[in-house]
């Protein structure tokens, strides 16, 4: 067979061109522009200013560094609080319960909804006087747990993580269920015969066999965490003050105030962080590909 004729290269043109022009090119341009004073007033006249933007980010008192720190913190915490409960729930559901399908459908549901919507719903739920959360706490005689969920500095991050987990656990869980259902039952029977308890089965059978799903969840979870924007933007818009500002919210702010060069510099930092993680993951995947 003539491979060139039946698998023609022009099949590749549209997606590769779109991806290169509207995805990669902006990233590459962004790296270049991050060394310039490009802004809303510069009208075509853009000057090279070396590392000035980066100096501003790393040394000014405008809290950009805190924003980067928040992004990293969000990535770590949001992954931990979703992955572990999701894994346990997936194991529970996979052991064969009645109504398993219904539970899974409902738990996955929040993750398909727009963040804007979820943000608005929780804005109402977190309302101090009439919101569902505080009202429920009072009804359960737990009034002392009432909080100003979105305006108290000590609580606001917990609220964001709560909403994030509420939205994301079902999604992570579904990927784990898919992985779990591919593990042969005989492995567990063998472990049972050897007298392994729940934790031993988890450690020696489930986790090693799940490495693919864990990897996928980590990759999606880490890239999601680093890029986080909507949920913070709608719930707190970075506030109170700058307490919940993350990299992408700063980047958007800088863009909307016309400081394009600074905005691209922040984006470039994000790009470098994700590129390091991305290269590592793609390496792992291509290794697996070779082994197949």
């Amino acid at each position, binding site marked *: 067979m003539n491979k060139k004729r039946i698998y023609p290269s022009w099949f590749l043109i549209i997606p590769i061109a779109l991806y290169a022009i509207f*995805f990669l090119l902006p990233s590459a341009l962004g790296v270049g522009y991050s060394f310039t004073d490009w802004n809303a007033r510069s009208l075509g006249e853009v000057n090279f200013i070396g590392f000035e933007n980066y100096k501003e980010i790393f040394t000014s008192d405008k809290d950009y560094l805190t924003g980067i720190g928040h992004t990293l913190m969000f990535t770590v915490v949001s992954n931990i609080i979703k992955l572990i409960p999701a894994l346990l729930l997936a194991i529970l559901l996979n052991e064969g319960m009645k109504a398993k399908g219904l539970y899974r459908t409902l738990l996955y549901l929040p993750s398909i909804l727009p963040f804007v919507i979820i943000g608005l719903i929780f804005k109402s739920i977190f309302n101090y006087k009439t919101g*569902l959360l505080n009202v429920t706490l009072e009804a359960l005689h737990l009034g002392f747990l009432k909080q100003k969920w979105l305006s108290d500095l000590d609580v606001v991050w917990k609220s964001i993580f709560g909403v994030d987990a509420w939205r994301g656990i079902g999604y992570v869980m579904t990927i784990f269920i898919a992985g779990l259902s591919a593990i042969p039952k005989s492995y567990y029977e063998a472990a049972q015969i050897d007298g392994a308890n729940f934790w031993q089965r988890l450690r020696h059978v489930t986790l090693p066999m799940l490495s693919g799903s864990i990897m996928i969840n980590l990759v999606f979870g880490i890239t999601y965490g680093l890029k986080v924007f909507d949920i913070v933007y709608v719930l707190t818009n970075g506030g109170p003050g700058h307490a919940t500002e993350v990299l992408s919210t700063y980047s958007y702010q800088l863009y909307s105030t016309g400081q394009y060069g600074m905005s691209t510099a922040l984006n470039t930092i994000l790009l470098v962080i994700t590129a390091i993680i*991305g290269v590592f993951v793609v390496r792992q995947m291509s290794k697996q590909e070779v082994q197949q």
Partner: protein
Amino acid sequence: MTKKRIQSVLKHALMIALCLAVVLPFFMVLINSFKTKSEAARMSLSLPTEWMFSNYVEVIEKGKLLQGFSNSMLYALVSTLVGVVSSAMASFVMSRRRNKVNNFLYYFVLCGLFFPVNYVTLVRVLSTIGLNNTKIGILIVFTSAMIPFCVFTIRNFISSVPVEMDEAAVIDGAGPMSLFFKIIVPMLKPTLMTCFILQFMGVWSDFLTPLYLSSKSSMFPMTMAVYQFFGKNTNYWNYIFADIVLTCLPVIIVYLLGQRYIVGGLTSGAVKE
């Protein structure tokens, strides 16, 4: 009761509690969307004293929801169709002709799974070719953004379609187009459906892309329309809740119809080793 029985009761209790935590907020939104302004402001779970179906009529008019709905539909349908089909064609060639160039292109595209989009320079690129602030520009951006995920998912799946199928078709005189659309596409149906549904829901929910790329409200998808409506009517929770219900409905319907493809797709595409 035996120990097993107790365990099973506890498990169900846990699951029901979690499902309630998911459902209650939706119930709160739905029930309050039928109340008067002052009653909805209390956000309680009780039934409305007076059912205000007119909230929906009001919000559709005031919130420009019909326009938002048709924009969202346009963005989600067109970009997903073009994105999934063109990614499938590319994945097909990448999977069947594994030479150096194609392997490089595959990993080149995969980088897009991780990299963040730089919207500031994307706006620059779009305005250079005169597509900034246009619906076509938004469509192109949505299409481009889904290519990495689609190629990743579909290429994995194509490997499991036997090459003998291609050979038989070619011997019968099929060209590349008819081979792909008549033989390969039907075999790929489950994974194409997965990509289609996940990406449709993704575009429908997206907020960041239109936030950066559209400044005219006539281009806003539903997510932006709702957010703008909230900004203007912060105290009218009855309208906001009705708006939320209408924005969620289409995705929930697509989700319930396409559910089996989502779970199936996550098994075959993402977790395949």
